[in-house]
């Protein structure tokens, strides 16, 4: 069959459009999280939308370049459904499914096709929600669609895109007039805002400057309101059910009595379920009767709410954009907060065993829209990718070769947003030279490294990447690591406590150091990083 080049979507096209949207959203994720008050102020709308799009990005990366349009649309649709998290993510996945229908049918990439894609996206999303609420991302996609349908035929594509985006942002602006909880909190709807950030990124490319009005819409909500509007239910529960002849409607009916924010969407072989409930166990057993469960996630929303409020309280006074911006690779909520508080403008998720590619780093550098950029890989395995990204970028980029996040933090102390990139790069690199780093982690297998015998499951202590101790006794491991770190007149130790189960006892072991080193300034922060109960630095 002859292929019409204009028909449908190519993998290349899809990759570049989706990536541009993803990076736009990634850059403003925290803003979206902090807007989130509806349906519950759990502060993760931005993260959920990002993870949903991320899943599509991953599918597209793995896809063969010559995939046909219909298969491609199926792949994207599936990626969105698989990755969908939270209410907003699930609704977004339905918009994606609807929007792709015309492209899957092989329609050419024209303005008319985009109009019909928007219409399908709106209808599919509205159908997925049991009781559609106005003043949410549903309203935003609908009003953008209505604007698209009402433009004159034959309008230039550029003007068409402007008109649709304009209508979408206006709709975001009106959300507080439709939904009282938003007006009370003095915010616009987080999902709608996130959707427009995504669409704008897709339409204009990731490197374009964010709209001023967007930033203004993302004003901070009033704290007073947050305290009153917690969800009635404790657990945000989501999962996939795979089986045969699955019926979304009957399963949804069965779940209605168990909670709210309920969404059941998908195909007859795979359903995505999202519910806020006090009985996640009951929900899951109802699901196992219908098929096989995958990607089960249960989050305690009370924790999420607390984390969000803490973040808002800690928020720094926003500093005006300086001459030089920082892009840093960071994992762990506490770590991100620390880096952000020191002025790092763009954070890329990643670290040990999840190294971002040079391309991802490049995109993040370009998203800063700044001519001078400092790039902190914060992991020895990411330094090369960072250097590659620096070479590829049109901005003047200097890589500050931090081999760990804790070293990166020490380098950030020397960061001066008003100075140039070379000056900053030199100062920050010098700062790295006087830092000794330590790590405590669990050994994953028996081995012998650096003259130390290691048994699986033991706590392993490293100083500047060298194993110095391995033992079951965490207190002993921490003390040994400190002994190796503090051998050259260091006076300040910074400890970042991880997010895992070993973290509390590790933090306790650190407190004992105060008795051993009374003159040491010991600063302990919640880093929240995975894999490492403790990351340490001394200077």
């Amino acid at each position, binding site marked *: 069959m002859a292929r019409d080049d204009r028909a449908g979507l190519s993998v290349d096209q899809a990759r570049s459009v989706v990536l541009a949207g993803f990076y736009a959203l990634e850059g403003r994720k925290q803003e979206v999280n902090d807007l989130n008050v509806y349906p519950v102020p759990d502060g993760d709308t931005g993260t959920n939308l990002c993870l949903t799009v991320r899943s599509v990005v991953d599918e597209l990366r793995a896809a063969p370049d010559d995939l046909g349009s219909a298969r491609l649309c199926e792949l994207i649709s599936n990626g969105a459904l698989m990755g969908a998290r939270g209410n907003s993510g699930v609704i977004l996945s339905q918009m994606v499914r609807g929007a792709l229908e015309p492209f899957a049918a092989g329609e050419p990439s024209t303005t008319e096709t985009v109009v019909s894609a928007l219409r399908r996206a709106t209808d599919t999303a509205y159908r997925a929600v049991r009781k559609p609420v106005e003043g949410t991302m549903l309203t935003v996609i609908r009003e953008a669609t209505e604007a698209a349908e009402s433009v004159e035929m034959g309008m230039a594509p550029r003007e068409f895109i402007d008109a649709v985006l304009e209508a979408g942002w206006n709709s975001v602006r009106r959300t507080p007039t439709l939904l009282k909880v938003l007006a009370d909190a003095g915010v616009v709807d987080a999902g709608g805002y996130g959707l427009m950030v995504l669409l704008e990124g897709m339409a204009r490319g990731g490197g374009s400057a964010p709209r001023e009005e967007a930033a203004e819409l993302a004003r901070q909500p009033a704290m007073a309101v947050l305290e009153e509007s917690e969800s009635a239910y404790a657990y945000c529960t989501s999962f996939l059910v795979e089986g045969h002849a699955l019926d979304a409607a009957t399963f949804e009916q069965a779940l209605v009595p168990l909670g709210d924010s309920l969404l059941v969407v998908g195909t007859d072989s795979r359903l995505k379920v999202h519910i806020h409930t006090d009985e996640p166990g009951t929900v899951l057993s109802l699901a196992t009767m219908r098929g096989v469960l995958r990607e089960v996630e249960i989050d305690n929303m009370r924790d999420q709410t607390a984390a969000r409020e803490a973040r808002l309280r800690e928020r720094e*006074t926003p500093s005006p954009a300086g001459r030089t911006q920082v892009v840093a690779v960071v994992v762990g909520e506490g770590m991100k*907060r*620390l880096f952000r*508080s*020191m002025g790092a403008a763009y954070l890329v998720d990643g670290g040990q065993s999840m190294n971002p590619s040079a391309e991802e780093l490049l995109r993040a550098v370009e998203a800063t829209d700044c001519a001078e950029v400092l790039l902190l890989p914060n992991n020895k395995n990411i330094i090369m990718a960072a250097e590659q990204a620096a070479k590829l970028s049109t901005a003047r980029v200097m890589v500050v070769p931090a081999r760990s996040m804790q070293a990166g933090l020490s380098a950030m*102390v020397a960061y001066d947003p008003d100075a140039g990139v070379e000056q900053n790069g030199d100062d920050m690199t010098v700062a790295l030279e006087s830092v000794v780093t330590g790590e405590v982690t669990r050994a994953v297998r028996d081995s012998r490294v650096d003259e130390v015998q290691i048994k699986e499951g033991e706590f392993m202590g490293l100083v500047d990447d060298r194993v110095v101790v391995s033992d079951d006794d965490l207190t002993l491991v921490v003390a040994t690591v400190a002994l190796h770190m503090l051998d050259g007149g260091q006076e*300040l130790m910074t400890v970042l406590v991880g997010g895992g189960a070993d973290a509390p006892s590790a933090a306790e072991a650190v407190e004992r150091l105060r008795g051993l080193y009374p003159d040491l300034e010991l600063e302990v922060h919640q880093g929240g990083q995975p894999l490492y109960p403790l990351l340490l630095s001394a200077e």
Partner: protein
Amino acid sequence: MKEDPSDVLDRSNTAIVVDSCADLPDEVIADPNLTMVPLKLHFGDDTFRDWVDIRPTEFYVRLRDAERLPTTSQPSAGEFQTEYRRLRERFDHIFSVHLSDRLSGTFSSATLAKEGFAGITVVDSEMASLAVGLLAHRLLALLDRGTTRGEFLAYIDRYRREAGRLFLLDTLEYLQKGGRIGKASSVAGSLLHIKPLLTFSDGIVDTYKKVRGERKAMVAMQEYLLEHTQPGSPVRVCIGHGDSPDRAEELAALIQATDRTIDICLRGEVGAVIGTYAGQGAVALFFIQE
């Protein structure tokens, strides 16, 4: 009378006026050629004249217990006028030296007050606290040996350009709450306990360097002095502190350990008005090489 660069200035004909934000110690305030006009401090409904009604020790105790931060206000033009009138009966020349116009309305009050008087020069030091104190102290030394108006003004200009000025605050909280944070704001939100070394530039507070750890900050202050001086001619040094004499001692020892010709000619404490913005625990280094 006409002001001419060749006018001879000495202790018989010239007076220096400062405001209380020069944080000069009692022995300098007692100098017959020096007059201090106090700013005011308001704790709730109670008003205190800086350094007159409230001394640093009492102030820091109150600051610790205060539910709300005190506020401060500049002297009125009338208060300056009263002093100018009194001094003009005895002196031909008055130099009124004040803290930065960009940090306080004091300079404006003094400028307004000098209208209608001859022989009064109002100087914006573009600094604050003992940085102004050291300038006044050096000007008195010039009067001791006798000088000319031209030399006097040239010294003030050189001091504004060249004087070393560096201070370390325990927290930026007070500077921020008091709205005097200037360009130092970029480190204010940091969750790590960063100690910024601050300086005055263009009359506002600016970050010189960021370090972590007390000892490192002290060493950075020593390095700063070495970078801004040469061996040889004496370096006139002032060391100040806000309720932290130990840190001041440590800094003095570090400075004296250098190969520069160090003359610590002035030591002082941070008063209540400056302390409102600096908080407890400040340590400051100001100097000028002859």
